[in-house]
């Protein structure tokens, strides 16, 4: 009888010794400050989001969160750094879709591969809309398409960056409607908007928040969303008008490849808690963004889908 | 005695050629500016080379052997510092670098007093700068230091 009790106790002890460290490891994370790397220069939207999340993350995780910058290459320097970090959860990096999908496809060697960035959560979507000035000669998307068909290449569309969300939207649009327009890339959202407002480009593939800021002066022809964008209730989606185009720039965070699932879960929960907060959702909406509440698995699937959609387009248009 | 113009012209020409080769596969829009710049660079280099041959102005690079040695030693110290920094650690390497330069630039190197001053000042200055940059200003610094 005693022998059985002893064996039982021994087994329990062994099980406890095996399971214990695991729970301690997960329960122990995080114990040190976490570094949140922003692969852009300070002041950009990704920085604003990181700063918005910083105090909330610190409260939820119970440790300091250090925001640091690693700009360059349109984000590629930050992401190539991320994949080299220790996968212990103490270094996370902001990610942008479609950048992390398009850069490896378009550049050959971007310093990282899309699959190497293990997403924790996607928290913000910036739908892209095609807009023209209020005093432009066309009033609807059909007008624009008709005009473009008659004058191929005449309509200039401003966008931010090459092989970026705007560029891909432009290419997809051309393919779906059969028109040719001229894409004029700029160094960022601010120059893009300035060029559009100044009349230097006739149309703009604009970020939703910029479109909201200049609502009064512009007319948005369509949005690349599944549902109509709340700030522009009268503006149809591309899908409604028969153009199967979904266009947005999404922001999230990722961890280095090989990060244990338990640690990702802790971080994922923290970010989902932030985006679940109605105050945050209100703020984002007011500024012209859409809150996303995608966890790690959902994000991974989303990104993989995007890869499938963009791969043929990049191949076709990369000369 | 060096023909400065000739050297400048030839080096610039080499740079132009070195940049020409890998940029042949660029897209039209990505490459147009590079092409124009390379053409301007190459043309001006040729002009300078011609001037160097036609009207050579010779100059001395180092005014003395002492100067040359000083520079080479100084550059060597910096190079060693940069190469070994990631391996030895940022802070230890910096202590060594500062102390080395301090001692090297001192008037009477053989006096023990000077060596001690070099080490002490190094500890104070490097630690001070490091703490200010890292903790007060919150700026990221290279890894590999004991404080990490």
């Amino acid at each position: 009888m005693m022998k059985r009790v002893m064996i039982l106790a021994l087994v329990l002890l062994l099980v406890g010794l095996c399971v214990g460290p695991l729970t301690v490891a997960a329960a122990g994370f995080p114990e040190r400050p976490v570094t949140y790397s922003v692969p852009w220069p300070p002041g950009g939207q990704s920085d604003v989001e990181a700063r918005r999340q910083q105090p909330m993350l610190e409260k939820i995780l119970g440790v300091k969160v250090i925001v640091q910058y690693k700009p360059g290459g349109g984000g590629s320097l930050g992401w190539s750094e991320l994949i080299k970090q220790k996968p212990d959860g103490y270094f996370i990096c902001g990610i942008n879709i479609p950048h992390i999908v398009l850069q490896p496809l378009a550049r050959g060697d971007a310093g990282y591969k899309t699959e190497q960035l293990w997403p924790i959560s996607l928290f913000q979507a910036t739908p892209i809309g095609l807009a023209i000035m209020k005093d432009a000669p066309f009033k609807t998307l059909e007008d624009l398409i008709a005009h473009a068909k008659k004058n191929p290449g005449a309509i200039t569309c401003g966008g931010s960056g090459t092989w970026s969300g705007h560029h891909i939207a432009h290419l997809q649009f051309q393919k779906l409607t059969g028109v040719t327009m001229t894409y004029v890339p700029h160094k960022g959202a601010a120059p893009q908007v300035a060029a559009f407002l100044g009349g230097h480009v006739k149309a703009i593939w604009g970020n939703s928040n910029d479109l909201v800021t200049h609502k009064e002066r512009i007319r948005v022809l369509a949005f690349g969303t599944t549902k109509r964008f709340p700030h522009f209730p009268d503006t149809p989606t591309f899908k409604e008008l028969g153009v199967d185009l979904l266009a947005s720039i999404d922001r999230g965070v990722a961890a280095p490849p090989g990060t244990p699932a338990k640690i990702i879960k802790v971080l994922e929960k923290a970010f989902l808690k932030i985006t679940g907060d109605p105050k945050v959702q209100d703020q984002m909406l007011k500024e012209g963004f859409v809150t996303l509440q995608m966890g790690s698995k959902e994000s991974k699937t989303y990104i993989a889908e995007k890869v499938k959609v963009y791969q043929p387009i990049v191949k076709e248009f990369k000369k | 005695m060096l023909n400065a113009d000739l050297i400048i012209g030839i080096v610039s020409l080499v740079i132009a050629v070195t940049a020409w080769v890998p940029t042949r596969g660029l897209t039209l829009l990505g490459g147009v500016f590079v092409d124009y710049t390379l053409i301007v660079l190459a043309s001006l280099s040729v002009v300078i080379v011609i001037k160097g041959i036609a009207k050579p102005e010779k100059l001395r690079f180092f005014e003395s052997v002492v100067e040359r040695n000083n520079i080479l030693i100084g550059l060597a110290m910096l190079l060693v510092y940069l190469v070994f920094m990631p391996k030895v650690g940022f802070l230890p390497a910096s202590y060594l670098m500062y102390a080395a330069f301090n001692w090297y630039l001192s008037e009477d190197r053989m006096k023990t007093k000077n060596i001690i001053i070099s080490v002490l000042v190094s500890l104070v200055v490097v630690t001070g700068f490091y703490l200010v940059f890292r903790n007060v200003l919150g700026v990221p610094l290279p890894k590999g230091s004991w404080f990490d």
Partner: protein
Amino acid sequence: MFEAAFLGLAKVFQLGNFFCLVIGVIFGIVIGALPGLTATMGLALLIPFTFTMTPAMGLIMLGGIYVGAMYGDAIPAVLINTPGTPAAIATTFDGFPLAQKGMAQHGLVAAALASAYGSLLANIVLATSAPPLAEASLKFGPPEYFWLGIFGLTIIATLAVGSLVKGLLAGALGLLLSTIGIAPIGGDIRLTFGYTELQGGVELIVALIGFFCLPEILSSFIAKRQATYSAEKIIPRFSVVREVIISLLKMPVLMLRSSAIGTIIGIAPGAGGNIASLVSYNEAVRWDKNPKEFGKGTIKGVAASEAANSAMAPGSLVPLLTLGIPGSPPAAVILGALMLHGMRPGHELFSTHATTTFAFIMSMLLAAGLVTVIGSFGSFLYPRILNIPARHLAPGIIFMTILGSYSIRNNILDVWIMFLFGVIGFISNKLKFHPAPIVLGLILGPYVEEGLVQSVLCGRAGGSILAYMFLRPISLVLIALCILSALWPLYASWRSKGKIGEKIL
């Protein structure tokens, strides 16, 4: 508007706000004075602290930092030939020679006063005429930026001491350097030779430290074993402050013109404040009766440069506050701060949040005054740094610049680039090939390229590329300026009755 301005001013004087302003200015001066740390980074570092503050307090502090940094960057420019931020490049041209002549205090006081003057003027413009100016700034399109870049390149004529062709060659090298990285249009990876780290391109401030600071240390201390940075011992005197004030009062045209140039360049979104000081310096040389004085240590050079770069700061806020388009990287950070506090740029800022907005503007006006005071008093302290023996100072500067170079992009590659450019700069100087135009090419390359390629795209869409690039009103003005500026050296040497070919080759 006056009512809002008055209310805003009152707000600044509230104890907590004023305290934050002073802290901000001091912090800004320190950040500006440390090479490698830019105003942008200083602002970004302090944004988390503004979370716990009211929007007004936070913005007041940020305004103080911006103004402080635009003066602080002159300190190392004068003392160790290293611009504290790229905006102060032109300050080194006359600032450092002043220090070498033992007149460092003159340079520092001139920098403080000129900074305050430029800041003051630009803030008045910002407060009174922001909306119409912002609208006008939108008229700057791709061809205009292209011609502005070309105009900037004609400054090489002034910078090329001795040989114009060699100056142009250096400029071309700079343009080539600027192409390293990802092509802004086309997205190609250029000249990285397989190093993915180089996809970010060459960072300007790192190149500046390399070309300006290291060669000086190498040649003075290491090569010649000079005991201190300047030949004469620096003894600050109060009479210097009076002297400088009187001198500056005697050059109202220069001060006004420099401030105007800085404000205008700041307003043009994305034109980059880095060129404000260079253009202003160039114009100061062009219109002066004794242009030969420049480059050898004259207060005029320092004043022209500093007035412009300090005026650029409020100028860059013009399109920011009215249209939400930042005119410079620090303005972009301030935009982030505005967004975080829920303040949208636009007429909302001047109506609903008018008091806070004007508190922000007024705080910068006051910051200009603080800079005058702190700068003048500081001029007694900082130059003494040059009296420290080289054995302590030189490695200290090396260490500080390494810290700065690393921290700008969190990248060890930048430290290597700094070292490499330091060596190249040293060799260039020895070969009488001055590297300043290389820096100019590096700064202007992106503008010229983007302007060129975008103009090609838009011109092609509109029918005629040439018509698009040449036949626009602002472009025509800029083209005329370019031609004038390019031919000026010929005119100047004809006027001084020298041989025309002398300074060209």
